[in-house]
């Protein structure tokens, strides 16, 4: 395990000719991050196929997160979440845009997965994940619950109200903004605000991610 604090220099070490006497752990980390960024972006320069570019760019966003991680405080952990979500949001838009551009939206109308295990297992797994996600609340809870719902929808020919679920996500977003305003203007009610924010983010993430599970090119949504 590395136990040196980030700002102090490592003890003098000599590798061959080079002496790393005054190199801190942060500098080593940032050097590696820069090398990773250079390698990752050189892949975009070389790649020609559109969908491969998209996948590569989704991967290289990790290098941005690496630089955030190097702050190495609680703040860094908190900043990773916006960074990650922006990446997810953008890949969602760009992939739908790619489908529209290549006129593939109509062609691949995927039916439900017609295998035996997808008729019996999804309700059980989906329910378990959804209950656990609601127990956790917050962002990770929303993701887990959404995963459960996505698995559930994968095994069904769904005809649920697309617009209704989308509206629910909108109200959840408003709930979260309300929680933020309570935090800012009535700080004594911080407990109410935490609960509103936790429930709001759970609903929002769950509704949106489960809608992704239903966007499979069927006509009845």
């Amino acid at each position, binding site marked *: 395990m590395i136990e040196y604090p980030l700002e102090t220099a490592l003890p003098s070490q000599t590798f061959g000719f080079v002496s790393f006497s005054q190199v801190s752990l942060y500098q080593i980390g*940032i050097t590696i991050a820069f090398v990773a960024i250079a390698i990752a972006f050189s892949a975009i320069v070389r790649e020609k196929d559109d969908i491969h570019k998209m996948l590569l760019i989704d991967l290289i966003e990790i290098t941005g997160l690496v630089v955030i991680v190097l702050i190495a405080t609680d703040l860094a952990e908190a900043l990773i979440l916006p960074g990650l979500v922006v990446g997810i949001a953008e890949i969602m838009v760009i992939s739908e*845009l790619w489908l529209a551009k290549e006129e593939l939206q109509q062609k691949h109308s995927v039916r439900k997965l017609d295998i035996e295990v997808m008729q019996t297992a999804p309700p059980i797994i989906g329910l378990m994940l959804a209950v656990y996600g609601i127990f956790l609340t917050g962002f990770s809870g929303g993701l887990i619950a959404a995963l459960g719902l996505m698995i559930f929808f994968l095994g069904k020919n769904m005809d649920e109200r697309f617009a209704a679920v*989308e509206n629910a996500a909108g109200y959840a977003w408003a709930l979260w903004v309300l929680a933020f305003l309570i935090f800012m203007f009535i700080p004594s009610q911080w407990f109410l605000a935490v609960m509103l924010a936790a429930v709001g983010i759970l609903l929002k993430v769950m509704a949106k991610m489960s809608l992704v599970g239903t966007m499979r090119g069927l006509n009845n949504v």
Partner: protein
Amino acid sequence: MNCIQKISLYLADTSNLPKIYAAVICLIAAIGICTVPFLTYHGDQLYPKPAEQNMSPLTPYDRGGVPFIEPAHIAAQYPENSPALGYVTAYLTPASWFLANTTCYLGTTIVGHPGGILDEILYYTRGLDTIVEASIFFVAFAIASFLYRRAKQ
């Protein structure tokens, strides 16, 4: 065809934009590698994460405090803008309070419960970041579903 014509022809094709942009970032990363000796870590950071921690059940995220009674000590940027600073960090839900008192490993899952240092930063002191992030997600979903539904019409 002279040089400038070739360059402008290459730039005129929008599918070349990502390549040019990626090349520019590669260049800046190379400059970054050259300037690494000037990048020194600032020791006095906000929201510090202590390197050595006691062995409480909340270990990686234990910042002290008692729920509802005593707020945790948080090094925020502008503490005067956040009067209830530290209460969210100290808060534990009844379920996580039970787990903290019976097991030693609540710290591994605390980010999944309301309360804790990350919720303090994400919801309270830097709440606006999270609002913007949620709005980005919201708008991204609006665009994707608009494109999706238009294809169905």
